[in-house]
């Protein structure tokens, strides 16, 4: 977009959350005008890159720019999403774009949050296949129907949009696993090749890990991949209930 004539541009007011721990200032919103193409619907990430060309000190994460790596989860005009696959036409309200870091996690700098807590919860659910199935140096057989059960679960990109939109996670980020980790817990419980369902459920059976989910559904409304963590959580709850009675 570096060679677009001026008449093909329009101005967008962008407002970005700024914080640098080394500068002792309180966090503030930095406003600036950027030139964006008139006839092309660019993505929020593109707009952010244009802002960074004006002020290179703005920090944010980005990698694939196509919605599969999960780097650029951020709060876009009040709603969590991925900058790279959110077009301005969907995001902008009143020609204004306000970008903040994902809520609920400590801010490292600008739009960059500390994901440690989020990843720790993921690690807790033993996010790997536990199996004792005979392989004979080949694949563990799995029917098409059994494999279909993993659709809607394995595609998670760990962007953190869901967990950081969840009030239950905001309250208990250390004890409530959060929608992202629970989606993965259910991904392994659902895998016909995995033999550790009971062990996995044992670990989830307390007042917090799963049951702090109150079905607020923010996770579903923000997931940029269209996944449904709430459904997975409900399935886990059902399995836990079934075991209890």
């Amino acid at each position: 977009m570096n060679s677009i004539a001026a008449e093909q541009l329009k101005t967008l007011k962008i407002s970005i959350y700024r914080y640098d721990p080394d500068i002792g200032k309180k966090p503030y919103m930095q406003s600036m005008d950027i030139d964006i193409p008139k006839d092309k619907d660019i993505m929020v990430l593109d707009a952010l890159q244009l802002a960074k060309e004006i002020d290179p000190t703005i920090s944010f994460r980005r990698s694939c720019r196509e919605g599969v790596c999960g780097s650029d989860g951020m709060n876009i005009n009040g709603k969590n999403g991925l900058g790279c696959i959110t077009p301005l036409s969907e995001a902008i309200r009143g020609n204004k774009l306000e970008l903040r870091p994902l809520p609920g996690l400590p801010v490292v700098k600008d739009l960059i949050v500390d994901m440690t807590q989020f990843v720790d919860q993921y690690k807790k659910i033993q996010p790997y296949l536990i199996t004792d199935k005979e392989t004979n140096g080949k694949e563990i057989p799995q029917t098409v129907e059994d494999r279909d059960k993993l659709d809607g679960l394995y595609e998670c990109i760990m962007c953190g949009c869901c967990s950081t939109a969840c009030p239950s996670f905001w309250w208990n980020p250390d004890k409530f696993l959060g929608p992202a980790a629970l989606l993965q817990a259910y991904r392994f419980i659902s895998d016909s090749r995995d033999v550790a369902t009971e062990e996995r459920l044992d670990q989830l059976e307390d007042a917090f890990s799963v049951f702090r989910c109150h079905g607020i559904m923010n996770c579903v409304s923000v997931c940029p991949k269209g996944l449904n963590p709430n459904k997975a959580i409900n399935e886990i709850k059902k399995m836990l209930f079934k075991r209890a009675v």
Partner: protein
Amino acid sequence: MAMNGKGYLDASSLPVKEFDGIIVGGGGSGLMAGLQLAQSGMNTAVVSKVFPTRSHTVSAQGGITCAIASADPNDDWRWHMYDTVKGSDFIGDQDSIEYMCQEGPATVFELENMGLPFSRTEEGKIYQRAFGGQSKDYGKGGQAERTCAAADRTGHALLHTLYQANIKAGTNFLSEWFAVDLVLNDSNQVTGVIAFEIESGEAYFLKAKATVLATGGAGRIYKSTTNALINTGDGTGMALRAGLAVQDMEMWQFHPTGIHGAGTLVTEGCRGEGGYLINKDGERFMERYAPNAKDLASRDVVARSMMLEIIEGRGCGPDKDHCYLKLDHLGADLLHKRLPGITELSKTFAHIDPADHPIPVVPTCHYAMGGIPTNVHGQVITQQSDGSDKIVDGLYAAGEAACVSVHGGNRLGGNSLLDLVVFGRSAGLHIEDSFKQGIGISDPTSENINEALKNINRVNSSKEGENSSVIKKDLQEVMQLSFGVFRSAKNMEDGIQEINDIRERSEGLHLADKSSKFNTARVEALELLNLLEVAEATAICANERKESRGAHSRDDYPERDDENWLKHSIYFQETKEVSKRDVNFRPKIVQAFQPFARTY
């Protein structure tokens, strides 16, 4: 040692973290090497500038090609080897290709056993689809279906599975750390890297007896690329600055189907599932260029055919500057089941639903066949003045950063993921073995460490000049114009001159933001220096290879020249000169495949 202000980093006060082995890069090959070393109990660290699952392996779509004999019980790794040698236009090393194709099946089954959610056949086996350049029975048995797939999200499934396996194995990650330069001792052995933690801005010498460069590709040297923004050739840049050789840098793959305007990839698996390319007249033009394989000819052939259609005025759209990939005849059900990811991408980036409308596509920079030369064990090789190979002690490379060379002049689709896992593993295995036997790497001196700090000190102390993003744009523009699908001497010579100017400008690069915490401007400035090394190597090698082979096609030398150029090109940054290196024609088990005219 925190970097802020204009302070110089110095060996005398630079903290050291010591490991048995370090792996730079957390994509497929890095995680495979990391897993191998973690399981061996060595003290290792995977150093990655992004959280590992943000690495570009995650974007691979179509699958991992491997003769696991699922779709065809008679499939044979030797057929896969034949296809790969032919696909490489005969400058792939046959010992490496043999190793990859033969070792492949065990590795793919192992990935499945780790949990990779492959799609399945009705018999419950791993699903395989057709990909370009695949044949049965050494080209005589028609199209093969050899690419193992997890829908069209195979890279995501593979990378997450490997990350999960590394969590299980307790691998130590230095996540969001940026490696700057290799530290060589007086005997030119590699003793580790200079790196900094991006979050704190603290710099360290990461000392190790074995260093693996698994830093991936550098597609961001081009303006339009399928590659992630992080693909800046960091390992290749480090190797070049350390005075090591790079190989076949002119060989860049242009993927036939990047989404027009956006550059994002739609998988070759679209054509494997029955999709095909059309021009503005709706003609399935690949029937003219490749009567047998048609749309599943190898990528260099398809990309050139598309560009010819566009050049000759049969392109689609108001500017006739792209082609269409037609999928609507496959039906929404198949698209939903086999190609859900590209359906999503087409809606987001092309604003069309491929179940109703063809996808506008154009050949787009995708993959570096060239890179840091290695043997099958991942050991980095450099060339001595007499032209002989020399192993660089302490240094390994794997994946796209490396040139082992299994892809030669043109990579076959699905061979990249196989390359990653097979050679990531083989590097890990070799390091483990070497450790058991005892590795003799002597310590670097303070001067050695300060030498490796030069680059970052220059950036950190810059006082005035241009911002890296300005220089980067100009570099990408030159590469796009002068080193694309079709190349001409005049364009390339002009391009080299412009890159020369850009190098001079880069000496005056200015990092205005000297702050320490998560300073992405610093990272981008250092990345630009790596891009520049890769771009310059590409340009000079491309101009030097006076023939057309694989992905390298020039109008003044339109034919392949086996007499003079059945060779790897080797390039050093210091002399900016290109020499030749023999291609390996000595596979261990099968007879070598001799060059023949390559048609599809």
